[in-house]
Every structure is written in structure tokens, then in C-alpha cells.
């Protein structure tokens, strides 16, 4: 069966079957990652460029490990050395990269829509690793993988996403992905951190009352307060944010016994999560998410780069 996609740019382009295929493939890569030799020769000879036009440590490391464990040659491009700093346009940068004869580009950019542009200009497979406040599809996939590992399913689960919905590209992919897979999504945030129209992302319920929402949830997904992306100050203080929207030992009493806590990292301890919740041995799956990231990214690379016919017609 062919995987009929060339790019992973917007999670809404994928069907439930596509997403399930990725998660199943990721599960196969789990076996590889648990061997002494955590590497397979599958993508030997493929060159993948990690084009990170915005600082990123976790996502970049995760992609790099995934690529290396598939035997890709990787080129890290960007950071403070980006050509854009020198005034080169994105088009010229991408065309330059393509002259190196590459097979795929992983794009992180602070501007929404940049991955699509990279895809249009380059003609090679493009994987979005986060663009502005728009999309972060591999994050959504690793979240789904983690949730499915714990519950054995995604359909019918009640997922609450708490925090900076409005400035979050994680939400831009996660909410639609959860809806595609049949979950029920509640977004919980102060109105100043809510996007203008959360319902069009797919949110079923919109509330600013965490305490009222918590008892219903199977998955409590805490978002990071992105201090670097806040135009104007949307809350009076971190203290008050923690008071109203922090998941604390006290609030844990409101949670269902089997409910889990997710966070895309890095955590602001004492703001969205306290130490107790962050390190909770049963509930916190934050480190599982990090591990899932490598598996899911291996699966995405494997499926997208699988064959020259891909994306044409299969």
C-alpha cells in the first residue's frame, strides 16, 4: 500500500488512515530504538536538510536522531548563520540548498506558511517542524502516539488543552489531529490567550474554567507559556497564571484516576506545571512524548521518502 503524500505540512491534509499508518509504523521503529544497534540502513544515501530558521533544540535534535537512525545524511542549516540574516530571500536560500541535490527539507520557521513556500520552490519532500503560529504536525503525531500507547485508542477520549492556545502552533496541528482521530477536545485558556475563532480548529468546548473542566478529562495537555511570542502582556503575572491555569498537586484531586498529563516541552516549572505534576510517575507522560518524537519522525521520514513514485499517483 502506497503512502500517498509527498509532504507533511498541514495535518489536516491527512486522513485517519494516514495517521494510523504513521503511528503503526512508529511502533515498528520502537523495536529498532530498543536494540543495542539503534540504526537501520533504510534511508542510506538520502540527504535531508534540517532548515531551522528559528532557534530550536528539541525538535531539531529529535529530527536529527530520527534521520541518523535511518542512515540519512543530514545537513543542519540555519540558526544564527542563516542566509536570511544576510538578506537572502527564502526562495534563493532554498534554491541554493536544492543545488546540493537533496531529498527532503525539514523546515522550522517563525513565519506561517514558510514550509509550503519551501515545498513549492524546492520540489522535494518537505516536513514542517513548526511554522509561526500555524502548524507543528510531527508534534501532534507524537502526542497522538503517546496517548494511543497509554489508552490503546484515541477515539472517544476527552482531551483538554490548557494555556496559550492563541499563540500555539502545537494547537494548530493537535486540535485538528485529535478531531480527525475522533477525540473530544476542550480548550481551556484565559480569553487573552484564546485565538479569535478556536472552533474552526475543531475545538468542541471552549472554557476558561480549568477546575470545572478537569474532572471530565482523560488527557490534560498543558501548553508552554511562550514568553518569547507574546505581543503585549496577556496575563498580569506568572503567579496569577499559575493560580488560575497551573496544574498543581492540589488540582490533581480533580483529575480522573487514569488521566494523564502531556506537555510539549520545555516546561516552565512552577508556571503551567508544578514539580509534583511534572514528575508524577503515573500521570506524567512528558518524557514518553520526547521518545515518541523520534519514533514518529522516523516513521514520517520512512513513509514520505518511500519511493520515487510517492505523491504522484499510487
Amino acid at each position, binding site marked *: *500500500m*502506497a*503512502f500517498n503524500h509527498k509532504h507533511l505540512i498541514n495535518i489536516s491534509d491527512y486522513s485517519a488512515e494516514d495517521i494510523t499508518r504513521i503511528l*503503526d*509504523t512508529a*511502533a*515498528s521503529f520502537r*523495536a*529498532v530504538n530498543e*536494540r*543495542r*544497534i539503534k*540504526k*537501520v*540502513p*533504510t*534511508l542510506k*544515501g*538520502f540527504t535531508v536538510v534540517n532548515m531551522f530558521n528559528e532557534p530550536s533544540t528539541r525538535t531539531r535534535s529529535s529530527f536529527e536522531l530520527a534521520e541518523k537512525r*535511518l542512515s540519512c545524511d543530514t545537513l543542519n542549516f540555519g540558526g544564527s548563520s542563516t542566509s536570511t540574516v544576510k538578506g537572502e530571500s527564502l526562495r534563493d536560500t532554498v534554491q541554493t540548498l536544492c543545488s546540493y541535490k537533496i531529498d527532503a527539507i525539514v523546515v522550522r520557521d517563525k513565519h506561517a506558511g514558510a514550509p509550503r513556500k519551501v515545498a513549492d520552490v524546492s520540489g522535494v519532500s518537505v516536513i514542517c517542524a513548526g511554522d509561526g503560529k500555524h502548524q507543528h504536525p510531527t508534534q501532534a503525531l507524537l502526542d497522538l502516539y503517546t496517548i494511543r500507547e497509554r489508552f490503546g485508542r484515541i477515539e472517544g477520549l476527552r482531551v483538554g488543552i490548557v494555556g496559550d492556545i492563541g499563540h500555539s502552533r502545537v494547537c494548530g496541528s493537535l486540535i485538528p489531529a485529535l478531531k480527525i482521530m475522533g477525540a473530544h477536545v476542550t480548550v481551556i485558556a484565559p480569553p487573552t490567550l484564546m485565538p479569535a475563532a478556536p472552533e474552526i480548529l475543531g475545538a468542541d468546548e471552549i472554557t476558561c474554567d480549568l477546575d470545572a473542566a478537569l474532572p471530565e478529562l482523560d488527557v490534560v495537555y498543558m501548553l508552554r507559556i511562550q514568553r518569547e511570542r507574546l505581543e503585549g502582556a496577556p496575563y498580569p503575572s506568572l503567579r496569577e497564571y499559575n493560580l488560575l491555569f497551573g496544574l498543581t498537586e492540589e488540582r490533581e484531586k480533580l483529575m480522573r484516576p487514569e488521566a494523564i498529563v502531556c506537555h510539549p516541552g520545555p516546561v516552565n516549572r512552577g508556571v503551567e506545571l508544578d514539580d509534583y505534576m511534572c514528575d508524577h510517575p503515573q500521570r506524567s507522560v512528558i518524557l514518553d512524548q520526547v521518545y515518541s518524537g523520534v519514533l514518529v519522525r522516523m516513521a514520517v521520514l*520512512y*513513509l514520505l*521518502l*518511500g*519511493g*520515487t*513514485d*510517492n505523491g504522484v499517483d*499510487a
Partner: protein
Amino acid sequence: MTDTRTVKSVCMDADEIERSLTRIAHQILEANHGASNIALVGILTRGDLLAHRLASKIKQIEGTDVPLGALDISFYRDDFATHLSPEVHSTDIRFDIDGLTVVLVDDVLFTGRTIRAALDALSDFGRPSCVQLAVLVDRGHRELPIRADFVGKNVPSSSHENVRLFLEEVDGVSAVEVLEMAPGDRAGSAPLGAEQPQEKEA
């Protein structure tokens, strides 16, 4: 799936398959002086089922349970770039292969590329003292210097033909068939349960 296959001949029926496996089990035990240091690793899909049958036979003959594993070679193929991402099945080797004699089990030996990939995959799990190869059918046309240690039946075939094993466990009927290759077909194992062996026309 539109079934456009043309069955040219059935070269082994269920009984013949059983008899061949019994013989191979004896040969494995004879060559290795018993079952004490051997493990069976079947190549997905269907080699694992043959390995399972061989293990039962060895248990009947020697009374010993030999370690049994399954190996998926999707990640080790050398034709990845020219074919659509193969569907991945799970490798399942829950024992340490270091120092063992590993008998790789596959259904049909053809170009040798699957075995090459399996050897690579195996070496990422450990360092066996010896690797042997058991196949139910050898149809020739080798593209690599690979030879089976234990062969059920040699089936001369044309490169325009597919030789495929069907097993009762997954396909409902056991048989080895020679099929005319339809355009777009790839040589190799039949998809699990996706195609049923056809009744030979009277």
C-alpha cells in the same frame, strides 16, 4: 483487488509441504548435532510461519523447544528508493542470538536480496556463531552469491513467473504455486490473506 493472476501450475500441495518440512527438520538436527545450540528465525511474511512449523517438528523429534523469532526486513531492503514504502511488520526476536546457530527460514529463495537484507538485519541484533538458511522452494535466478543449506524443493522457473507459497494459517489453503506475473506485480511473497490460491482447473 482485481485478481488477474493466472495459475500455471501447483508445484507443491499441502502434503508435500509437510513432508519437505519434516525432512528439513531432520536435516537441521543432523547438520547441527541436535537442537541444543540452534535458533529459528523466520523472515516475514510466511517464513515466520514455516519457522513455527519447523520448531514444532523439532520439538516432536528431539523434545526440545528451540528459540523462535520473526524478522522483518523492510528497513534493510536495497530497493527502497524504487518501491513504495513497504508495509512494516514487527520484528520479534526475544532472545540473545550471540553465539547461537541461527537458521534463517524463508519461503521462496529467488534473487537472494531478501536473504542479504536479513543477514544485515540479523547482524544488528547480535553476533551468531553461525547462520544457516532453510527455504521451502529454490526457484533459481540468484543475483547475489547466496546458497541455501536446506531446500524443500528446487522449482525451475522463468523470470516472468512468480512462485508463491500459500499457507493454511493465513491463506486458508497450503500450496506452492507458479503464477504468471501480471503487469505491475512484484516477485516475492503474496500479501497476507489478500490473495487466495486458486483451484487448479480440471
